């Protein structure tokens, strides 16, 4: 590509930038301002208080739910990323000829309907669901396993299915930049098994793995539909449910909901920074 004067470039960049500023930047800013206001009855009163943050982070229920959210999102990401890594590795280096077909299948599953997949997992995991029915008919269990649904387990099983395709894409795309010869050479020099992955392959696909982890964690932590459908009344509530309730129900508290939203956003940024640093450290050893 030739180097072109960027004189006209700004005019081309302007419309989308304006859209982002008006419908992304300003709304987030308003939400941030709102998080320093107070709720009085049904209205929000302008203020400059940190009360929502302080109240949100000292309330035992909110902290419990927040910690559970972090734990569920962390475990989900820690299950999703290794599976996605192995799958991407196999697609690139073992089933090379069918890599496109496999990637196509993964994409189709990604777009097979967000709500649909969540609902289907409820059908599969329910007390009278497919899994329990099958296990009962096979005689493997005497009573339906009730813990399968309406528990953090059900939430994680579903989230893993939802997020696996999304985690696979970045890892797969950074692995496509790794040449087969490079891996072969490392193998010839005596690097194999886990060592091959840790010292050769993983450092090369690290950006993809970091992105995959961040995507999996962020989307798991921010999801409120899965815990609503599969989390049950108390044991599976996540921070998304709390925030949604503050904006929808009769016990509305918009400022508190806004503050909790920013707590979640801050948390996500921290997790992202820690993960990328940690991964870099692991691969350098």
């Amino acid at each position, binding site marked *: *590509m*030739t*180097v*072109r004067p*960027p004189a006209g*470039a700004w005019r*081309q*960049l302007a*419309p*989308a*930038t304006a859209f*982002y500023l008006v*419908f*992304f930047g300003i709304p*987030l800013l*308003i*939400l941030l301002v*709102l998080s320093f206001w107070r709720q009085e009855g049904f209205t929000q009163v302008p203020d400059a208080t940190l009360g929502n943050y302080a109240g949100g982070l000292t309330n035992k229920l909110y902290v419990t739910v927040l910690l559970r959210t972090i734990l569920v999102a962390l475990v989900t990401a820690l*299950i999703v990323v290794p*599976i996605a890594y*192995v799958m991407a590795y196999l697609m690139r280096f*073992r*089933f090379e000829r069918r890599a496109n077909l*496999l990637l196509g*299948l*993964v*994409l*189709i599953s*990604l*777009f*097979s*309907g*967000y*709500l*649909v*997949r969540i*609902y*289907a997992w409820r*059908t*599969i995991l329910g007390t*009278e669901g*497919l899994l329990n029915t*099958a296990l009962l*008919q096979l005689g493997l269990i005497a009573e339906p396993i009730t813990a399968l649904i309406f528990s953090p387990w059900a939430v994680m099983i579903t989230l*893993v299915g939802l997020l*696996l395709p999304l985690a696979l894409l970045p890892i797969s795309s950074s692995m496509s930049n790794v040449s087969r010869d490079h891996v072969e050479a490392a*193998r010839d020099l005596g690097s*194999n*098994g*886990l060592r091959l*992955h840790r010292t050769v392959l993983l450092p090369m696909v690290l950006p993809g793995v970091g992105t995959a982890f961040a*995507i999996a964690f962020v*989307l798991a932590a*921010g999801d409120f*539909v899965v815990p609503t459908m599969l989390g049950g009344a108390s044991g599976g509530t996540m921070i998304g449910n709390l925030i949604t309730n503050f*904006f929808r129900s009769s016990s509305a508290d918009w400022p508190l*909901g806004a503050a909790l*939203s920013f707590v*979640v*956003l801050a948390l996500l940024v921290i997790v992202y920074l820690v993960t990328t640093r940690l991964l870099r450290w692991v691969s350098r050893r």
Partner: protein
Amino acid sequence: MIGQRAAPATDRAGEAGSGILSRWAARIFVAIVLLYLFAPVVVTVLFSFTTSPRLSLPIEGLTLDWYGQAFSNPLFMTALTNSLWLALVTAVVSVGLGLPFSFGLARLKDRARGPLLTASLVPAAVPALVLGLALAVFFTTIHVRPGLLPAAIGHILVALPFVILTLNARLETFDFTVLEAARDLGASPIRTFRDITFPIIRPSVLGAALLAMALSIDEFVVTWFTIGNQQSLPVLIWGLLRRGIDPAVNALATVVLFSLVVLVILASLLSRRRS
């Protein structure tokens, strides 16, 4: 769980190269992953055709009744029309904004391009819940009632990063000297775009538009916060789900699923084609 069981298998795969054992371990791993991904899809499609309203195995009989029931729901046509309208608006506007943006990016020097591209992808990294809330509060603040238009804005915000990502990938390998040649030969900017640029990038543009439509049709969270009393297919499905188990949901879901799969297959075929 699957990961723990499968991890040793791949280590062996790495060591033994093309050993029969590792080959089978790799195949079984891929099969389990695909089963995990497609179990919900198979369940939904299967139960949209079975007679028993209660979900049970073995299957008793097949029927199209649930489709009849889903389509005769008075809200279905409204939801379908609204979803199609949203998808169309989302595709047109997000490509209309994303295409010039990607061209602008391609003209920038590397140092400016990287951060700007990353910045344009940020909305995709923010949880949909926060996007939806921020937009809901924003529209309340400027006294715009919830409805289809706010929902469309939300959909565009969701789709735009992916449109930019797709188009940027195409333009990175675009040969800009072709355009300069056309300009040197006296073609106007409009003519250059119509006769040279657009024909070259058309498959990618269509691919990006279809991707935007798929994202829009499947979008639920942002929609739920911005659409108010209006319907879209996912909002309708959500309403039915909350009322308990209704097999008509499976039929409705299968319709959505089918249209999404068609869009995504078309999109990926188009994006891959280089004219």
